[in-house]
Structures are given as structure tokens and as C-alpha cells.
């Protein structure tokens, strides 16, 4: 369908109200600036596809920072170089919108190199118009990543040198090594023929997005008469004769034909569904287990569990805390985290209390789970007078030195081996502690373990290990002595 009249495209505002000053019909660009031509080609293509209402145009930082003066569509002005990231956020939120990222060479290939690389690599279904004028137009003709070797700019007064500044970046070629981009073409704003090629490429870039085909980038070699210090007609010639000789024109990559449009469905969720997904409405776990009567000395324990990584230290702490929670206690669990864990030792702090808990940190310790010797060495002295130390006597071949604390020696690793899984050492210890302190019911612990253990095949082993630990304490009454120093090491 040929138009009889060529005139200002409708996707431009009739009057550029956002532009300051009294002249609201002309652009803010210099005479002969390529940006103006490119704008017109984009606006015309937007008209053609009828996408003005659903388009979101992202203006960069550079001479085209004010592109939002002109395009009659949703407009967002982005930080320098970040337009592809902003575009990503927009497109993911509004998959039906048409998102244009319009960027200069400083913006895209300089400060925003990472953003464009990754947007391209993700194959965002957006259209990028990359205006390569081999200079920083806006800030006064400084070198751009695309400035040619030998080209003089205000920051390369003797000409760009390979040694100092490296080679100009060929963005299309660079991106073409990526799998995802669908369409990469370089065009130039020079004579009628090239402008028409640019027009076609710009249309195709937008069409790809309309059809959901993926990432398109059109690099446009564009005159900057002001930045180059030449007249517009000469600038146009320089693009043709010099710039286009350094940056090869034409299609660099085109997978449009084989690109499969992505279908995006957006599902709505009810409040109930969301709560359920977050785990807030699991059936039957609403009730609390009764808090047993606990001896004063075992009330409100501040517990430290320590051992080496792989002994399930953190998990043991979580089971303690979670059982406490299911019994209606206040509780906190605090891990040692990061490299400390990688170093081989792990410890966590658990507090169980009838009252709101202040510091989750355990320094003065009521109950110490020493799962290996270094743990006992390190924390033995932190245990308060009359506190309780649970010693994994399978791995710790010394007695507790203190005689003002209660000690429970449990051959936990051996007992775990008996149920067929060394890893269940932690459950043996938990069983021993539960039997000793009676702080929560055994049913509660087993329920919690059931709730927490991810791999259900371990459930049975865990339960057996837990019972082993419990029985060990219950059957070894002699351990409940009051004379701490007479505890027998076994």
C-alpha cells in the first residue's frame, strides 16, 4: 500500500510539548544529525505496524536522551547504558508491549557494554537501535568505543591509537557470536539508497518483535556533523566513504526465518493458591503439641551445637527449633555461615524459650552438643555451671574436664551405624537430648522430622536413630547422677 503523501509520521507527537523553549515543532538535534532521520524511520515503521499504543520507547543518555520529546507512545528515560536492562524489566512485565531500546555508541558499547551483551544473550524479545556515530556527541566530541583509528576527538587530540585506546568495537560482529540474537544488521544514513535500506532494517527489527521472534539489533552508522566538525553534507559523505568502509554494511546475522515465536501465558493466582504455594496452608500442622513439664534446670535452654560439616549440625539445630515451635515455644536458630562452614567445622545456636527471645546468639551456653573433639575443646568452657554437655563419645575420646556441669556421653555415631546410617548421628543426639530434657514430646520431634526431611527414604532411619538415642538415655539411668564428677566415660 503506497502512501500518496509522505509527511510527519503519526507516531510522532503533533507538537513536541515536552521540549523546552518556544519551538515545539523542530527536533533538538543539530542540522544534518543522523538521529533525526533514524527517528523518522522508526516512527514511520511504528505507524505501519499500528503499535503506537503498545510501544514503550526507552531513551538513553546521549544526544537522543530526549527521544521522549518525539515518540507518541509510552516513554522511559534510562540511566546511561542501562536501556537494555530497563527494556528487560519492561518486556518481562508487559510481554505484549513493543519495547525499543535506542542507544548511542558510548551508551551501548561503552558504559553499557555488559547490559547489551546480556540482553542479547538472553534473546530478549526487544528491538535495539544502535546509533553509531563514532563519537560522544552529547558531551562534546570525545572518543567513543567505535571511534576509528587515527580519528581525532577531544580526548584523542592526536588521533585514536591502537596502542593507547585499542581498536574500534564492532558491535554487530561481537553479538553475532552469541546464540540467541535473531537479527543483526548494520546500515548507514547516507544516500537515498542506504537510507531506504536502513528503513527496511528498522521495520524488520520491529516486525520481529511484533511476531515474538526475539532479539534484533540494527546498528546505524549515523552522521554527527557537529561532533566531527564538518558540514552535514560532508558528514554524510564521511559515513559513506570512511565509516562504512570500516564497519561492514549489511546483514551480520539473520535467523528470522527459523525463529519460533515464543508464546507467553500469564496465569492469575488466587490468594488461597498463593498462600498454599508459600507453604502457609499445609493441612493438619496447625495444632501444637503439649509442652511437657520441664525441670527448671532444663528450661529456656540456650543451645550450641558444634561438629564438623557433614554431621548434620545445622539440620539438628533446625529440628530442635522446629520441634520447639510446634510445642508453642519461642525459638531461634542461628548458623555460622560462609567460609567458616567450608573450613570443615559447623556450629549453630538454638534458643528455646517461654519468653520472647532477645539475642539469638549463644555465648553463655546451657546445653552444648559436642559432636567432635575440636567442638568440645572450643566450647566446653562456655557452658554455664550446672549446664549440660552432650558428648558424642564415638568420636571424642576424652572426658569433659569440668566437674560443675552435667555430662551425657552418647556413642552417637556407633548407634547411628547400628541403624545403618552414620549420617543419622545427629538424630541419635537429638533423641538423647529429648529424653534427657523432656522439653518436647517425642511425637512432636518425629512429626517435625517428618515435616522437614526432604528425602523420605531417610525418614525411617531417622526415626530409628532418634529412638536409639532416646532409649540409650532412658536405659542408662546411672547417667542422671547429681555428682557430675562421677560420670563414667564409656
Amino acid at each position: 500500500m503506497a502512501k500518496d503523501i509522505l509527511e510527519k509520521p503519526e507516531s510522532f507527537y503533533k507538537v513536541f510539548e515536552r521540549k523546552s523553549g518556544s519551538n515545539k515543532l523542530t527536533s533538538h538535534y543539530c542540522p544534518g544529525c543522523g538521529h533525526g532521520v533514524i527517528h523518522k524511520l522508526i516512527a514511520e515503521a511504528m505507524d505501519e505496524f499500528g503499535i503506537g499504543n503498545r510501544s514503550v520507547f526507552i531513551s538513553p543518555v546521549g544526544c537522543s536522551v530526549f527521544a521522549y520529546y518525539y515518540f507518541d507512545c509510552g516513554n522511559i528515560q534510562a540511566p546511561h547504558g542501562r536501556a537494555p536492562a530497563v527494556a528487560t524489566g519492561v518486556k518481562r512485565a508487559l510481554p505484549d508491549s513493543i519495547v525499543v531500546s535506542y542507544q548511542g555508541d558510548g551508551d551501548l558499547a561503552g558504559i553499557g557494554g555488559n547490559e547489551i551483551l546480556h540482553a542479547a544473550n538472553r534473546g530478549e524479545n526487544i528491538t535495539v537501535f544502535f546509533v553509531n556515530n563514532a563519537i560522544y556527541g552529547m558531551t562534546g566530541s570525545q572518543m567513543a568505543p567505535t571511534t576509528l583509528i587515527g580519528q581525532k576527538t577531544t580526548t584523542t587530540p592526536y588521533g585514536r591509537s591502537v596502542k593507547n585506546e585499542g581498536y574500534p568495537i564492532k558491535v554487530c560482529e561481537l553479538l553475532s557470536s552469541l546464540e540467541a540474537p535473531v537479527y543483526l544488521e548494520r546500515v548507514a544514513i547516507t544516500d537515498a539508497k542506504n537510507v531506504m535500506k536502513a528503513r527496511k532494517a528498522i521495520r524488520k527489527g520491529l516486525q520481529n518483535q511484533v511476531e515474538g521472534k526475539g532479539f534484533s539489533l540494527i546498528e546505524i552508522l549515523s552522521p554527527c556533523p557537529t561532533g566531527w566538525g564538518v558540514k552535514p553534507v560532508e558528514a554524510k559523505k564521511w559515513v559513506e566513504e570512511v565509516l562504512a568502509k570500516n564497519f561492514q554494511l549489511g546483514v551480520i546475522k539473520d535467523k528470522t526465518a527459523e525463529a519460533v515465536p515464543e508464546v507467553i501465558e500469564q496465569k492469575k493466582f488466587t490468594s488461597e493458591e498463593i498462600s498454599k504455594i508459600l507453604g502457609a496452608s499445609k493441612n493438619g500442622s496447625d495444632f501444637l503439641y503439649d509442652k511437657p513439664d520441664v525441670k527448671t534446670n532444663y528450661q529456656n535452654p540456650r543451645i550450641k551445637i558444634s561438629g564438623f560439616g557433614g554431621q548434620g549440625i545445622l539440620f539438628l539445630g533446625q529440628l530442635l527449633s522446629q520441634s520447639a515451635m510446634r510445642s508453642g515455644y519461642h525459638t531461634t536458630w542461628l548458623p555460622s555461615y560462609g567460609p567458616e562452614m567450608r573450613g570443615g567445622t559447623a556450629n549453630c545456636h538454638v534458643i528455646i524459650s517461654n519468653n520472647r527471645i532477645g539475642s539469638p546468639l549463644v555465648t553463655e551456653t546451657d546445653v552444648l552438643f559436642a559432636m567432635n573433639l575440636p567442638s568440645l575443646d572450643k566450647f566446653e568452657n562456655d557452658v554455664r555451671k550446672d549446664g549440660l554437655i552432650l558428648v558424642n563419645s564415638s568420636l571424642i575420646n576424652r572426658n569433659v574436664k569440668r566437674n560443675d556441669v552435667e555430662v551425657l556421653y552418647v556413642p552417637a555415631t556407633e548407634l547411628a551405624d547400628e541403624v545403618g546410617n552414620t549420617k543419622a548421628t545427629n538424630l541419635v543426639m537429638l533423641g538423647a537430648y529429648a529424653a534427657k530434657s523432656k522439653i518436647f514430646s517425642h511425637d512432636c520431634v518425629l512429626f517435625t522430622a517428618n515435616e522437614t526431611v526432604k528425602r523420605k527414604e531417610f525418614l525411617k532411619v531417622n526415626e530409628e536413630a532418634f529412638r536409639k538415642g532416646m532409649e540409650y538415655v532412658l536405659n542408662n539411668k546411672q547417667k542422671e547422677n547429681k555428682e557430675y564428677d562421677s560420670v563414667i566415660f564409656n
Partner: protein
Amino acid sequence: MSELNLEMVNEDPNPVKKKHNARVEIDGELCKECLLCIEVCAPDVLKVSESLNKMGYHPVEYIGDGCTGCGVCFYVCPEPGVIRVFKKNKVA
């Protein structure tokens, strides 16, 4: 849309002599005198006016005859609303 304009650019090696039913309108107040349009107008029917516009430029004007309606000036003009090309001589 067809590739009409691209074809038009290559259309006529000697267009001036042919009678064309087209014209171009230039809003001189919006012209920045970059002269890119003059450069590309094959029949050479655009010229710089002697008067100044409010921006201080000598705007380009149509000599009044000979426009082929090729549209090339419209596409090379960086300004959004200076040039209107009527391919058939209709009054808009």
C-alpha cells in the same frame, strides 16, 4: 508497505524532462539548512531561500516545478515535519 520509495530512487535517469504530477511542501520555519535534501534531489528542484527563518537559517524551498514525488528528500531530512511530499498533485 511496498518498497516503493526504494524503487523510485532508481526510477528515472533523467526525470526533469518528464511531466510529473507531484509536488513538495517545505515549512521553512522548521528547516535547519542542512542541505541534505538538495543533495539528493535528482531533478534539482530544491534551493536555499534568501530569507531567514526564526531559528536563523536560510530555509530550503521548492522552485515550484519539476518534483517527481520520489520522496527522497523526505527521508534524508532529519527534521520530523519540514517536508511533505505529494506524490500526486493533490491539495492536502
